[in-house]
């Protein structure tokens, strides 16, 4: 049956039937910085309205989280009597490039550390206060503020050396089928990017836009929230926020978009 289907598609394309689909695959649009080699940001698959919303800071609803994050950044909290600004400076400039290179392998902790985990590490050990809950307003505000400092910078995660083992595990996860629907990430985002599943256009599932303002969520959300959503979609048990599995997957997914610009807060459908 597989061969038949291939032959049929080929024939259909040959007689001009699938001409539109073909044209869509070999998209000739120049996406500028939003495409690097084969890597295409989710931005390139969105509607013009969503793109316009993302491009304009006054229209982009995600900017609200950047503003809230700026306030938290300067707020003294905890037994040490410090704010983020006490150690990292008032402006947030010192955070330039952080979102582009995270998650990173932390030599001292001996593990892969993503942005949320690093923020909580600072809160607990340097400020001596309570960590933020993963998908809380505080955490989303802080990650969006920090990521925004890298706006436009190319994703550049390190996947060799001590990060190699985590990278390999993340990659294995990406290709492993799961759930009652028995699908791997690659079935939707590698084999069928650009294809339509029900009413959705599948993208390459890139991580460069996170935290993203998703119209469906009506708020910003983390990359791991997206992983949980995609796992649930195929009726697979999601992993907890901050789990090693998802942190490894973050590294691998970010690497699949190496060179794409950080777009936080992006706007997605």
């Amino acid at each position, binding site marked *: 049956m597989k061969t038949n289907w291939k032959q049929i598609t080929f024939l259909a394309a040959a007689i001009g039937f699938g001409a539109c689909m073909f044209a869509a695959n070999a998209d000739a649009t120049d996406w500028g910085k939003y495409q690097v080699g084969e890597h295409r940001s989710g931005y390139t698959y969105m509607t013009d309205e969503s793109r316009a919303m993302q491009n304009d800071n006054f229209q982009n609803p995600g900017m609200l989280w950047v503003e809230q994050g700026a306030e938290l950044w300067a707020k003294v909290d905890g037994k040490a009597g410090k704010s983020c600004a006490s150690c990292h400076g008032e402006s947030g400039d010192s955070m330039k490039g952080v979102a582009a290179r995270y998650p990173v392998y932390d030599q001292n902790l001996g593990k892969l550390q993503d942005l949320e985990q690093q923020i909580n590490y600072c809160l607990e050990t340097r400020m001596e206060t309570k960590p933020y809950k993963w998908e809380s307003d505080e955490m989303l505000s802080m990650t969006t503020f920090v990521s925004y400092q890298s706006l436009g910078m190319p994703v550049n995660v390190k996947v060799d050396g001590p990060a190699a083992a985590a990278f390999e595990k993340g990659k294995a996860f990406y290709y492993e089928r799961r759930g009652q629907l028995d699908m791997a990430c690659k079935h939707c985002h590698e084999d069928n990017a650009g294809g339509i*599943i029900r009413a959705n256009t599948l993208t390459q599932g890139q991580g460069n836009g996170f935290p993203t303002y998703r119209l469906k969520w009506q708020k910003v959300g983390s990359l791991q929230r997206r992983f949980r959503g995609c796992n649930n979609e195929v009726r697979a048990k999601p992993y907890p926020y901050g789990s090693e599995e998802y942190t490894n997957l973050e590294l691998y997914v970010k690497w699949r978009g190496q060179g794409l610009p950080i777009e936080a807060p992006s706007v997605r459908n």
Partner: protein
Amino acid sequence: MPKLTILVSAAAAVLLLAGSVSADGLVKYKVADNAIQQSLTGKAGDAAEGEKTFTNRKLGNCLACHQVTALAREPFHGEIGPSLDGVAGRYSEAQLRMQVVNAKVINPDTIMPAFYRTDGLHRVLDNFKDKPMLTPEQVEDVVAYLKTLK
């Protein structure tokens, strides 16, 4: 003695074919040449019911990936899989049954879910654990519906 063996194995074969159940609780079926000849229920399915199962988003949800011109009234036909117009002319009933039961037998790398399978799955959500996506009746109904797509 040889007669007896034949009798016993014939009896076993009859038992097998009469919808006996395997260790995972599913009806046993036999695959030959990427096809399943026998109905999972021993009966023909109901095409009208099959159309409902096919379009229902919680059951077949087949339109998530396929297009069917006869179902143009239903919104949002996906384009991940081929159009199923004329599919009855391209495949036998037995091949269609195989494709629905477990498309991976035909194409191990396919994105299409197996609709009658519970083994070899990984991290299935508790509500769906050890349950096939469709019942044997629903599979046969969908196969009957596919046979109307001439």
